[in-house]
């Protein structure tokens, strides 16, 4: 079963890459952008058919490796 996870920076953590991307978008004429925050997206295929168990497994992976909880939040976004 495939489970996806999105890792984003917490609100009060500076994201210089997001800021530069925002400025570049602005320079390209996308003037309606309030803010850009860059994150990470993972697609994980686990050997597990029970959606709840698969999600729990990926959540555990997020806590232990995929995200650093000092600066990042994680969200399990879909199960297929």
């Amino acid at each position, binding site marked *: 079963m495939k489970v996806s996870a999105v890792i984003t920076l917490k609100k009060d*953590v*500076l994201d*210089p*890459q997001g800021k*530069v991307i925002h400025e570049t978008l602005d320079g390209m004429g996308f003037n309606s952008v309030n803010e850009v925050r860059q994150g990470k997206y993972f697609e994980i295929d686990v050997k597990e058919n029970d959606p709840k168990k698969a999600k729990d497994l990926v959540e555990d992976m997020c806590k232990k*490796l*995929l995200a*650093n909880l*000092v*600066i990042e939040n994680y969200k399990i976004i879909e199960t297929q």
Partner: protein
Amino acid sequence: MKSSVITFPGSNCDRDMDVALTKFGFKNKMVWHNDRELPKSDLIVLPGGFSYGDYLRCGSMASKSKIMNSVINFAKSGGLVMGICNGFQILVEAGLVPGVLLRNKYLQFICKNVHVKVDNKENTFFKNLDKKVLEFHIAHNEGNYFCTNDQLKEIEDNNQIAIYYCDQNGNTNDQINPNGSIKNIAGIFNKEKNVLGMMPHPERMIDESLSGEDGSIFFKNLLNNIK
């Protein structure tokens, strides 16, 4: 005195550290990350470099390698552990020192000499050091020290800040902060002060004709403190 330097895939300051430790009298052993047991050591060093190509987050993969269980146990039982640059990143990812190291504020890789102020000498690493300001070298892309406000309060309450970026006279301010680190923090201890993580490289300052001698001062003092 015995030391061990851990080599991870992508470490590139491990041999420099070996040269430095040996020069000042440590009997040093190189340890491969896939080993499970540490040789008997008075000091463990996690060296600089780009372990696992900095994949995911700098130091995150190396912090889970096989040898790290032994390093964590060694640190928790009071053993001296020092992480330099990527080694510092590995220490934060392993949870041995608080905080994280973010991308440098101005998104540039920084490679230059810096001055650092040694604030806390009540620990084995800096005890009896007769200089307050040292000149070391930094070379990193992710050295921007960050922690939560709660962590910062705890760090300050416990005197865990080891060194600050400063000018040659020891003044700390935003202008001489190379990477955006909170409070100009260049190095930090764990609560018990037996684990030190720092971005600057003392092992690059051990030869008068090549660089400078402030690393020599640091290593000689460290050896005397461990004896």
